[in-house]
């Protein structure tokens, strides 16, 4: 998806909590977050963190200078783990 949009001349950036999966699709730019699966901009209701993630990610549109480049976002998961298919998803859990 991201590749096709770039081919139409529109720069893109994606969020990723799963660098292995992201690497396979060779996106032009991406921002690494450590939030668990299903929670790409942080905890529900955490307005300030959502704004920070968005600001950093959109700023990286311009700051990433080479194809495939990414930025590491520093934000932590500050809520309880999320139950999922018999497992518990915490910071960094992406499957």
């Amino acid at each position, binding site marked *: *998806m*991201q*590749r*096709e*949009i*770039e*081919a*139409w*001349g*529109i*720069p*893109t*950036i*994606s*969020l*990723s909590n*799963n660098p292995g999966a*992201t690497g*396979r*699709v*060779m*996106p*032009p730019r991406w921002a690494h977050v450590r939030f668990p*699966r*299903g*929670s*790409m*901009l*942080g*905890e*529900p*209701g955490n*307005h300030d963190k*959502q*704004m920070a993630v*968005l*600001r950093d*990610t*959109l*700023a990286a*549109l*311009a700051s990433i200078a080479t*194809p*495939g480049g990414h930025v590491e976002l520093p934000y932590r998961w500050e809520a309880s783990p*999320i*139950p*999922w*298919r018999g497992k518990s*998803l915490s910071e960094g859990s992406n*499957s």
Partner: protein
Amino acid sequence: MTARAKVDGRWIADFRSRYDAWWPGAAPLIDKHDYASAFKTYPWPAFTETLWAPVTKPLGASRIGVVTTGGLYRAGHDGPFDGKAPDGDWSFRAIPAETPIQTLAISHEHFPHETAQADMNTIFPLDRLRELEAGGEIGGLTSTHYSLMGYCTRAADVAEAMAPEIASRLKAEGADAVLVVPV
């Protein structure tokens, strides 16, 4: 679906033949929800290059479009995705920018919904983007945003049918940059 893909599709024939070899063995594992075993041998597309459109406008003058893979749809306007299909769903839903995002429904069987149901901004941050627009940090939002259901094993159909249609619409709607939120 009318738009044709602009991205190089030379990987597609190779993918389709490897996919057809993979699917008969994978389908019974997917039926048992043993995704780890099924996708251990998935024929990942063999991309060889990174596409790159340069940024030409400052963010404060850029119109932003959003694509989420969270399987969001407008209940009452559009139907749900086929969340239970073993090979996924490669359709998409257009979501007008003025849609109150907390009214969106989720049809996606492959991520926990608790966070998004409590606050859709965690996977489709239109409210936060409107705040950035109000503060002049971005130029604005496109009139429409797009939702797809991120579980789809048929990468060739995504590349040939869904992706070009969404990309062409974003282009027509004047998107200067697009935020992609894979869920």
